[in-house]
């Protein structure tokens, strides 16, 4: 059995994103005006998941750790919004986000202490098992969490009411809330991009590529893994908080381990060796799932087959494959 870490292969030269960014940004900005409301709402979901997938990739693509427990953070972020609304009687989105980010940090800090002592499969399984602790609590402590009914997340006020909230929820979600989500998405992705390009990011990649050498270059491997874990958990929780008002409800499903699998699926679909891969993957996966659920009751079968094909034939994902095609077209190796 090969011991090489999942990311220690030839690096994919990133598809030059610069050229695509501007038109993409324009498209995202005018989207509510060129597409029907329900499409915009679907895209909002996609953007929230994109933050979660990018967060996962901080660990996977850049630090070499595959977490099968990220639902814990996403769900925590969602429930944080619900708790803040229910127990503090607050409806400010900023407070929701702050609570979400804080929950992500605290939970990831705790889980991380345990998880980063391990690598490879043990790490993945441990993350899974710990995330189930949260799920089981949400499931069983129904008088606090609403159990399987979930916890209601009311329509939040954005920027303290500066952005007005129209009475019609659909309009709200497809306009004001969409732009808010876009803004949070841009900030989160921007921060994560800075992180991976920074000296800290270089250290993480070194840990991914050669743990022993990283140690002997003076990097405190375990500590940095933990920090990456906490950052990853924080951003994933923010994603969950963003998702909650869209869903209207924080439910145990958001904490259930197969959902962690979906987040991994998104990252792998888009290509976990690039920065933009998981983001693209999340949006595509979201559309894929929405399409599949709408067409057939056997949507899990469809998704499962896609994943199997992905792993067997296209492990570098969408962006990786595009990069490969690009190289061939340009006549490089």
């Amino acid at each position, binding site marked *: 059995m090969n011991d090489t870490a*999942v990311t220690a292969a030839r690096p994919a030269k990133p598809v030059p994103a610069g050229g695509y960014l501007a038109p993409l940004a324009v498209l995202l900005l005018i989207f509510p005006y060129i597409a029907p409301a329900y499409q915009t709402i679907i895209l909002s979901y996609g953007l929230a998941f994109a933050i979660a997938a990018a967060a996962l990739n901080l660990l996977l693509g850049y630090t070499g750790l595959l977490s099968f427990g990220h639902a814990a953070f996403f769900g925590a972020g969602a429930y944080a919004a619900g708790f803040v609304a229910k127990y503090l009687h607050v409806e400010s989105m900023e407070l929701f986000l702050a609570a979400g980010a804080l929950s992500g940090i605290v939970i990831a800090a705790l889980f991380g202490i345990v998880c980063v002592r*391990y690598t*490879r499969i043990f790490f993945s399984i441990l993350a899974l*098992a710990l995330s189930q602790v949260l799920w089981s609590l949400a499931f069983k402590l129904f008088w606090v969490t609403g159990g399987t009914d979930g916890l209601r997340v009311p329509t939040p006020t954005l920027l303290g009411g500066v952005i007005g909230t129209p009475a019609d929820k659909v309009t709200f979600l497809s306009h004001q809330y969409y732009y808010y989500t876009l803004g949070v998405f841009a900030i989160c992705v921007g921060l994560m991009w800075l992180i991976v390009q920074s000296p800290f990011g270089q250290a993480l990649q070194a840990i991914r590529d050669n743990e022993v050498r990283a140690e002997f270059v003076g990097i405190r491997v375990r500590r940095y893994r933990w920090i990456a874990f906490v950052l990853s958990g924080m951003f994933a929780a923010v994603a969950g908080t963003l998702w909650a008002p869209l869903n209207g409800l924080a439910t145990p499903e958001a904490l259930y381990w197969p959902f962690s699998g979906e987040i991994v699926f998104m990252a792998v679909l888009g290509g976990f060796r690039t920065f933009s891969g998981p983001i693209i993957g999340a949006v595509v996966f979201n559309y894929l799932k929405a399409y599949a659920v709408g067409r057939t009751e*056997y949507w899990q*079968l469809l998704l*499962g087959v896609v994943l199997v094909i992905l792993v067997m034939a296209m492990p570098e994902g969408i962006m990786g494959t595009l990069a490969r095609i690009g190289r061939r077209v340009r006549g490089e190796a």
Partner: protein
Amino acid sequence: MATLVVQALNTAVYTAVLFLIAGGLSLVYGVMRVVNLAHGNLYMLGAFVMAWAAGGAAASVAPPLLLLLLPVAGVIVGLVGAAIEPTLLRPLYNRAEEYQLLLTFGLLLILEDLTKFVFGPTPLSASTLWSAFGPISVLGSDYPAYNLLVIFVGLVSAVLLWAFVYRTKFGVMLRATSQNRKMAVSLGINVRGLYVLAFSIGCLMAGIAGAVIVPVQGAVLGMGVDALVLSFVVVVIGGLGSLEGALAGAFIVAVVRTLAITFFPELELAVLYLMAAAVLVTRPAGLFSRSSS
């Protein structure tokens, strides 16, 4: 006193089922270093096959004969495993182990819907089989006789498995391969065939677990996903790759669960997962593992 007997027996039942599922998972890992996230869904498949067969044939066949369906269900699931390993798992052995997790997760999704497709979206029951055995008096308390059968199946399986791994020629080759694959190949052992066999046995165990417990609790979509995490807890505690560990781990988990249900029902599951984490932190190799299977 009565409840103590009942609780103890329930614990034994739970141990038996957990051992079968987790033991299969552990065996596969021990021999092949594969973690199969779809393992729980093979347990579910066994449950559905049994429930469908026993439920369908219940009216016309005497209950004791229906028990013959147990190994049949197990074998069917084993055959599914024999189909999966060479086609989907073998290509991944030369790649990073994380890809197995991804692929078997895809398999999980596929099996979930295939089960729904073949057996329908509603839960299936084989409770008539369960009630047909009636209660039996154990140390003064009435206890379902079928449950005792489950304990019996668990015991027999443990013994058979132990004999197979430690007393047969196959078992020797199995253990040799798990310790040192390259050496095994150079000794002329047909490692490929061995892998198919090991994986099939692991699936068979999961299938039997599902089949034997289904008269007690029914077959429901999603039961596999639940069961998987529990079996992870068992193998983490007992040590991945060790059959004795799977048995010990199953017992510990069963005991803790029974205690938790009695005293802190809300924390039942949380306690188990926390226990797994605690074991991983203190004794990462598991409480009972050795370096080989």
